């Protein structure tokens, strides 16, 4: 294959616009075209999608991002972004007719309120068989998935209390064992045994014994939840399935018993907040840093009872794995749902996984959000959530140098192949500090296998890490890696509550896999960027 000259590439770009199409002409994959482009310092778009004139014109007509954006079918935030790009910062001086309407907002606003629905509203209204649903309305709905893990033992106990003999639909129940796997005590062994007997009795086929991995990871890997569907799970981090554009949330064991018995649950249509994330993440900064930063700003109850929707080019460029991290941790600001709308990334992920048809849900253009937030992330630094709350977030510079006794890489938050890959890259040829124990906890069997194939596991072992079987154990202080009095742990998990991983006098810091690997090498909280510079 011949590498095209710069002028040639510019010409092709003017004609075909995208890397993919240029690639088709040249017979090269899109990423290769992107590579050439970067080498030759050619921008991603030959011509901006919207010209200065067009943006200026709309800005002068409307003087309002939302209205102007609507003409281009883009969000308020996206229009603002364009406007800023062209330096159109001041309000237009000449008043146009369209702006005058703004001074009569009552009628038109109410009109919009009646029409627009957020993803949460739409999803719940579809499940409830209603045309529309107001925020605050309570509906009875049938979930598409009811997930439980080891606590299915307690669910079974409560289910038997109710006195119904059969579960409502065995095909919608999924039970992976992960929290204390393999059983760490006789009590757990008995619970696991009761679950194995129960799933056989009830014909629950989607039971994954201790071998398979962490429940949330298993659920998305095996295609048990699809875009637009509704899931409930007896685990708070059930919000994770929002990475596929699903509505999913955590409930307690008794409530799950009721779902098993009746197939119904009451849910309140929540308020929604919209997060617009812009900018390309710098080297050494990942989805984990992004969401920790956001939680630091919005606080641990910033999204309590609310549905969180993610938008913006940062999110669009994220893989499903990274989106998973966002949705997973959104629970830590209280989120009921955390949704990244379905797009081509989601579609590609589901290609071989979805075994039934699915119908993605999008928010209406005129959906009403309780709040909208914008985050510019192109200068973000690695973030660390310090003890004992997830919103106690600091920049790496403020905390580096704190001695660490244990590092935990993995969990449902950050135990996927890209997480292991970046850690392995940093650890390759190095060793964990002699005073620091490093544990690696892959998210699932399939991730473990892939890591094995790619040589990451070998890298970890050679770096003196302890590789655990996929599961949750240390993250919640159940077993494997419990902390003693006064010990400090840096973990890629999702909670740093007091006593979470062991002694009440131990401390947990949360950070990205890259920060974890860098900290393991130095034996203290460290900036991963020092290890990533070429």
């Amino acid at each position, binding site marked *: 294959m011949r590498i095209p000259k710069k002028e040639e590439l510019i010409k092709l770009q003017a004609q075909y616009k995208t890397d993919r199409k240029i690639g088709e002409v040249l017979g090269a994959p899109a990423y290769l075209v992107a590579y050439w482009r970067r080498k030759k310092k050619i921008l991603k778009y030959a011509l901006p999608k919207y010209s200065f004139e067009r943006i200026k014109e709309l800005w002068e007509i409307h003087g309002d991002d939302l209205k102007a954006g609507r003409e281009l079918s883009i969000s308020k935030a996206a229009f603002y972004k364009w406007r800023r790009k062209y330096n159109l910062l001041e309000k237009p001086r000449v008043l146009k007719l369209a702006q005058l309407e703004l001074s009569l907002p009552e009628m038109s606003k109410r009109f919009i309120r009646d029409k627009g629905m957020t993803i949460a509203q739409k999803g719940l209204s579809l499940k409830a068989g209603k045309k529309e649903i107001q925020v605050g309305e*309570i509906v009875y709905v049938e979930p598409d998935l009811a997930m439980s893990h*080891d*606590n299915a*033992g*307690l669910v079974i*106990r*409560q289910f038997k*209390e*109710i*006195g*119904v003999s059969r579960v409502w639909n065995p095909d919608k129940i999924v039970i992976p064992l992960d*929290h*204390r796997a393999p059983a760490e*005590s006789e*009590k*757990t062994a008995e*619970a696991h045994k009761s679950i194995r007997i129960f799933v056989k009795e009830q014909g629950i086929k989607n039971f994954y014994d201790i071998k398979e991995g962490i429940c949330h990871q298993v659920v998305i890997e095996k295609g048990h939840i699809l875009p637009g569907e509704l899931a409930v*799970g*007896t*685990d*708070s981090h*059930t919000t994770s399935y929002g990475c596929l554009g699903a509505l999913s949330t*955590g*409930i*307690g*064991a*008794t*409530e799950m*018993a*009721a779902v098993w*018995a*009746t197939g119904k649950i*009451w849910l*309140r249509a929540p308020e929604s907040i919209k997060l617009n994330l812009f900018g390309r993440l710098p080297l050494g900064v990942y989805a984990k840093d992004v969401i920790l930063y956001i939680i630091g700003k919005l606080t*641990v*109850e910033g999204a*309590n*009872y609310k549905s969180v929707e993610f938008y913006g080019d940062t999110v669009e460029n994220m893989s499903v794995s990274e989106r998973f991290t966002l949705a997973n941790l959104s629970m830590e600001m*209280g989120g*009921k749902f955390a949704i990244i709308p379905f797009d081509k990334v989601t579609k590609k992920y589901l290609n071989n996984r979805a075994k039934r048809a699915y119908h993605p849900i999008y928010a209406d253009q005129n959906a009403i959000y309780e709040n909208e937030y914008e985050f510019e992330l192109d200068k973000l630094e690695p973030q660390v959530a310090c003890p004992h*709350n997830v919103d106690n977030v600091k920049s790496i510079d403020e905390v580096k140098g704190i001695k660490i006794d244990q590092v935990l890489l993995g969990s449902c938050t950050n135990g996927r192949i890209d997480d292991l890959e970046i850690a392995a890259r940093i650890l390759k040829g190095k060793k964990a500090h002699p005073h620091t124990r490093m544990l690696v906890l892959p998210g699932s069997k399939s991730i473990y296998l892939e890591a094995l194939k790619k040589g990451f596991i070998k890298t970890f072992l050679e770096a003196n890490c302890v590789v655990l079987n996929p599961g949750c154990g240390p993250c*919640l*202080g*159940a077993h494997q890696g419990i902390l003693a009095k006064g010990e400090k742990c840096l973990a890629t998990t999702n*909670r740093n*509550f*007091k*006593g*979470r991983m062991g002694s*009440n006098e131990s401390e947990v810091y949360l950070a990205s896999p890259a920060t974890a690997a860098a900290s393991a090498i130095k034996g203290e909280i460290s900036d991963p960027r020092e290890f990533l510079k070429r």
Partner: protein
Amino acid sequence: MLKEIKGRVWKLGDNIDTDLIYPGKCLPILDPQEMAKHALEGYDKDFPNKIQKGDIILGGSNFGCGSSREQAATSLKFAGISCVIAKSFSRIFFRNAINQGLALVQSREAYDLIEGGEILTVNYVSGEIITENRKIPFPPLPEIVMGILEDGGLIEHLKKSLKK
């Protein structure tokens, strides 16, 4: 009918999380009486011994944040806690408490006006928290929630509705 709850107040802070209320290491326990022995153990090791039947907990904002473990609510209930008042509750804890039949009151004002150790009465009918020298109104719970609470929890509520 759930009318009046009277008890002595334990005042706690903001963000009392599920690990403070019920540590992860106790999760394999299935017997509620046994769970009660660990209620708020993470907050204060001696707490389970200090609680007397009928006591009321007064929490700050985001009470019960964290895990979906309903043992947090169950252990409080079986330890004898009659009611939890807080500035705000975390979503899952709220549902769990109701489903266990543990009465909840959300009141932003109460936290600043009431001290630990006070004896107070929660009246669901009039929607007031009554202390020695003042009455603090609180918003009613949704009907559906009140129905579950009055039946003593979701299991009893379901049994009742399945009988019909």
